[in-house]
């Protein structure tokens, strides 16, 4: 099971991806239907559900704006 954290742009998605990687969390850039459902076109980071909360906290602590999160089917 995976979850997607939706970011405001590709810039923030790449920044967040890099930040997570330095914290040992590997996330794939996603442009899935789930991302689209949040606010039209956009980018997200696909993360194992177990790591979701930790990842979200890391991203928030770096002041990277998160638009939302969705479960992947």
């Amino acid at each position: 099971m995976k979850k997607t954290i939706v970011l405001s742009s590709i810039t923030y998605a790449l920044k967040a991806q890099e930040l997570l990687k330095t914290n040992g969390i590997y996330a794939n850039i996603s442009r899935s239907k789930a991302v689209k459902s949040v606010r039209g076109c956009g980018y997200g980071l696909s993360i194992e559900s177990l790591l979701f909360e930790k990842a979200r906290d890391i991203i928030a602590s770096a002041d990277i704006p998160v638009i939302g999160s969705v479960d992947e089917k």
Partner: protein
Amino acid sequence: MIYFDNAATSMPKSRAVADAMASALKKCGNSGRGGHAFSLNSAETVFCCRKRLAKLFNTRPENVILTAGATESLNIAIKGTNRIGGVTVVSSMEHNSVMRPINALRRNGETVMRQFLVDINSDALTLENFSAVSSSATSVVVTHASNICGRILPVQQLRELSEDAVFILDAAQTAGHIPIDIVELGVDIICIPAHKGFCGPFGVGALIVNPYSDIIIDPLLEGGTGTNSKTLEMPELLPERLEAGTANICGIAGFSAALSEFEYPENESSLFAYLLEKMRSCVDITLHGAPRGDDVSQYVPVLLFNKKGYDSEQLCSLLCERGFALRAGFHCAPNAHLTLGTYETGGVRISLGRNNTKKEIDRFISVLKGIK
């Protein structure tokens, strides 16, 4: 041909820059527009360029807006922060890339422009002149260093005297020549080209925003950003707010490659001091706006001169025929020429780069003296 026109653009560009541009043309899709490998490869190239610039200027990657050059950056900064009824203060050394956008605002009744005289020999007098016109300033736009004589302005002190204004710095002639820390300087925006001090390609530049600044910059262009497609408004967040349309990926890849091999030049100041000494030995040469003594610390390596009995364009042509690339005339900076007393004559500009040598300067001086 010996190249002494680095204030116009640096020469030569490196192989790495050319290779990166060619590779981007083959391998990069449209950045921020898709989830496939070509688009993500492109997005990573762009983000890498932002990160390298952010590190150099001490800001965040998202505060680096990639543009078509310093002129576009300045237009976005000047017009995007202008509020009707404001007062814009400029120095007397500005390039037309600053003067023309402000004049367009002034013509439309959107700002009032005030100018302060730069005293080439005294920062104290420059600051005094600034204080006399800056009390109600809502924007201050100044060049970091003159494109005709290389004089560096006392930016940090100017900023301290205008804390409430939006402060925009034109760093076209200093970026890549001297370290610039946007937080230390305290300015809101720095505008730079890729193709001068950083030895990158043409058609790319950046608008760099101070991470502690709370200014709102309105876009100059509206269009697609690859995000928030269902709204007709541009995104609120940087950098996409100011980057409508497809980016110049090849240029950005070249810029990023230039930054990856970039180091601040170590010998420019000593070479400039050497040039200055040699030029002073020419009896029929007049220098304009040059350092008075041997201290060149307040200058980037740009020198303006004229030769007795010669028009500047004529002299420049003669030097070109003898194998030297310089630039004559008014250098898109009429007010700066007015400040230096060369408004009627123009001048010949010699501008050094990281590849110039003492031997080249010796040859130049010998040829210059030989023109009778």
